[in-house]
């Protein structure tokens, strides 16, 4: 018994160290400019996911994820590929639907916190940013336009999936993937689009982190939750409830958050290039709001049920950290120009 307990504690410590390592690798991805260094960092992050996937579930290699990751790495190492090949590799590497299946397969094999890190750290956006920065003329305008439409379509599919998913983390994951597809679509829409994409990216990463942390904390305290039924947690977990609702509304583009201005700016950047993509973008944003609200109602409202056991409370440092993050997101929503590099 004692041995088993020690083993569990050791496992938990190991998982925590692995998570910190993954976060460090993801952070490195965002700091590199040189394509070779970026490719190395991308591969290192990929190796980390493979290691964790094997450690968490089975020793089999996550093949789909390996293919997806490899496609992403190829563009950095071979930027002179034909346009169609570059576009295909970028789309697959970024997990555009149906290539999102490699991400989905990874979700099934990674621990929840580890997959949340993959979503929140947005390594695909880092990869695309690095690629465009290193090889500015590599993608022709027509290719960019096609990619843009593909990303908007993918965002639409992900937001639709968020409407039918039942597990809270999966609903949030689909919304985050939808938002990040919109970020990439916006980034391809000229300089205005890039400014907007940066704003939306900051909002997606910040809000995604807060919302996924809350979902994870709710799972720890109350076990498996389901978006198809009502759990009435507003009274049992009032602090998490408040943070979830405020952060969620700002995340999906309500005034008060940076996402509101970012989406507005993105629409304006996009409409000049493709009306169909703009309509898709607007519909995806609408679906995301409905998906979030449906999840909120499922988690926090409904007839109050007295829990069979007394769930442990959330550590106060977590509440403080999440509150500070939400306040920072609200502050960015009040002063969006802080996120714009080239104003005027």
């Amino acid at each position: 018994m004692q041995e088993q307990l020690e083993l569990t504690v050791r496992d938990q410590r190991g998982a925590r160290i692995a998570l910190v390592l993954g976060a460090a690798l993801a952070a490195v991805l965002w700091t590199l400019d040189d394509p070779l260094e970026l490719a190395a960092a991308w591969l290192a992050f990929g190796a980390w996911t493979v290691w964790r996937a094997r450690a968490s579930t089975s020793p089999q290699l996550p093949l789909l994820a390996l293919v997806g990751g490899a496609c992403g790495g190829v563009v950095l190492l071979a930027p002179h590929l034909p346009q169609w090949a570059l576009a295909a590799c970028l789309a697959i590497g970024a997990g555009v639907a149906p290539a999102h299946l490699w991400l989905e397969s990874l979700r099934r094999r990674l621990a929840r916190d580890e997959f949340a890190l993959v979503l929140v750290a947005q390594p695909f956006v880092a990869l695309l940013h690095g690629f465009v920065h290193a090889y500015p003329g590599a993608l022709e305008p027509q290719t960019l336009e096609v990619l843009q439409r593909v990303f908007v379509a993918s965002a639409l599919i992900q937001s639709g999936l968020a409407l039918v998913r039942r597990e809270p983390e999966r609903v949030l994951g689909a919304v985050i993937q939808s938002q990040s597809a919109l970020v990439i679509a916006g980034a391809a829409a000229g300089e205005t689009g890039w400014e907007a994409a940066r704003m939306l990216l900051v909002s997606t990463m910040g809000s995604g982190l807060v919302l996924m942390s809350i979902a994870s904390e709710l799972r720890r305290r109350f076990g498996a939750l389901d978006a198809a039924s009502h759990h009435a947690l507003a009274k049992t977990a009032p602090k998490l409830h408040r943070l979830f609702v405020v952060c969620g509304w700002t995340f999906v583009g309500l005034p008060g958050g940076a996402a509101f201005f970012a989406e507005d700016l993105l629409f304006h950047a996009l409409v000049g290039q493709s009306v169909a993509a703009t309509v898709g973008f607007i519909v995806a944003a609408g679906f995301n709001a409905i998906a979030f609200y449906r999840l909120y109602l499922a988690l926090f409202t409904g007839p109050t049920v007295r829990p069979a056991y007394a769930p442990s409370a959330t550590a106060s440092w977590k509440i403080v950290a999440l509150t500070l993050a939400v306040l920072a997101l609200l502050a960015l929503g009040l002063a969006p120009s802080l996120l714009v590099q080239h104003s005027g």
Partner: protein
Amino acid sequence: MITLETVLIGGLLAAFLPCAAMGLSLLIGAPMSERRSQQSAHAQALVLFVVAAALIVAHFRGDGPRELRLAPLLEAHGYSWTPVFLLDRLSLAYVALVALVHQVVVRFSIPAFHRESGAQRYWFLVSLLALSLWLVSLAGNIDVLFVGWELVGVCSVSLIAFFRHNLRSTENSLRALVYYRCCDAAMLFAAVWIHHELPSSDFTQFANAAGSKAAAGIGALLVLSSLAKSAQLPMSPWLHRAMEGPATSSAIFYGALSVHLGPWLLLRTQPLWDEHLLPRAACGLIGLATAVYASLVGRTRPDAKTALAYAAMAQLGVIYVEIALGLETLALVHLWAHAGLRTWQFLRSSSLIQDFQANPLVGADVRLRARAGLWRALVGAQLERRIYLAAMRLFWLDALHWRTVARPTLALFGWVQRVEERVLGGAGRGSAE
């Protein structure tokens, strides 16, 4: 020297501060006492009232319509998000309406929410709703209007779901949100189109852009975007469900104030699309159809609040027809009078039976009698019965929406999810799906 700008900006800030204080205290988990929340809401209502009075006095002293432009909040590569406010007859009429009705709501909510669980949340939402309605009414361009419009939507939805333990309330709030989002998407597209096609997004410039090719399309989108807030066909099924909200006080807000935002938006943007047949015809036909639909359905409703909701919907339909016919002043007067009447009726709805019995004109022997008049002579008893049954079932509008929009959409994405699971095998480790 106190300028109009100082009054407006100072007033908006002063109205924002109590709201922000309540919101912040809720967020950080240090709720205010009941008395403090009430005082904050009261202070905000007072500020709105005084500022409204000051703005109206300034307007009638001869300043005329004024546009106030603040520093841009965001500028990037030619794009600019600038707060612009417009003070004219239309905006001041709505500002005055909100200021007056908000006072009434606050006064009546104090006893209604005494020791009620979640009272501070209620005060916060009501204050934010009032501020958002002000933003919408004072907006000088489509961007500021959209901010207020979105906030009004979220506040209304949150008020409908105020009683979180009541499943019906929460489900109805989700339904209201779905209708709101559909129409908000139209407004967002209209806003983007305005920025893209017209020389300016300021309302004062709309008359100059009326000849633009895009004006008819933008006008049609604006008509579409106004439908959900005003519960016009086909976006009407949410309104009677919104009556699940707390007491009469919040029903006033979305039953008497926010439902009038649709006609208000049309009046505000009318110079742009007035000359074009498409938006005018859409506005008139939708209004007429809703007036007929709501009058018929309202007659079959058994409770006071729902009957009032349908009565409001019918009158709003008539206002839409007036706007389509170009009768702006009549529409504005109708809007004001209607909002006043509904406020009074919503407040009295809980004591309706007592009112009836105490009314010396009615007397104590109140009987509901079938009145066979011109209507039956025109349609015949059998058709009348059929219409009544159809009206009882809301003309199958809910079922129609479910079958033609909601179910196919959910079925499509459900199919995508099933394909995903078939390819990868199951929903995954520890999944609830």
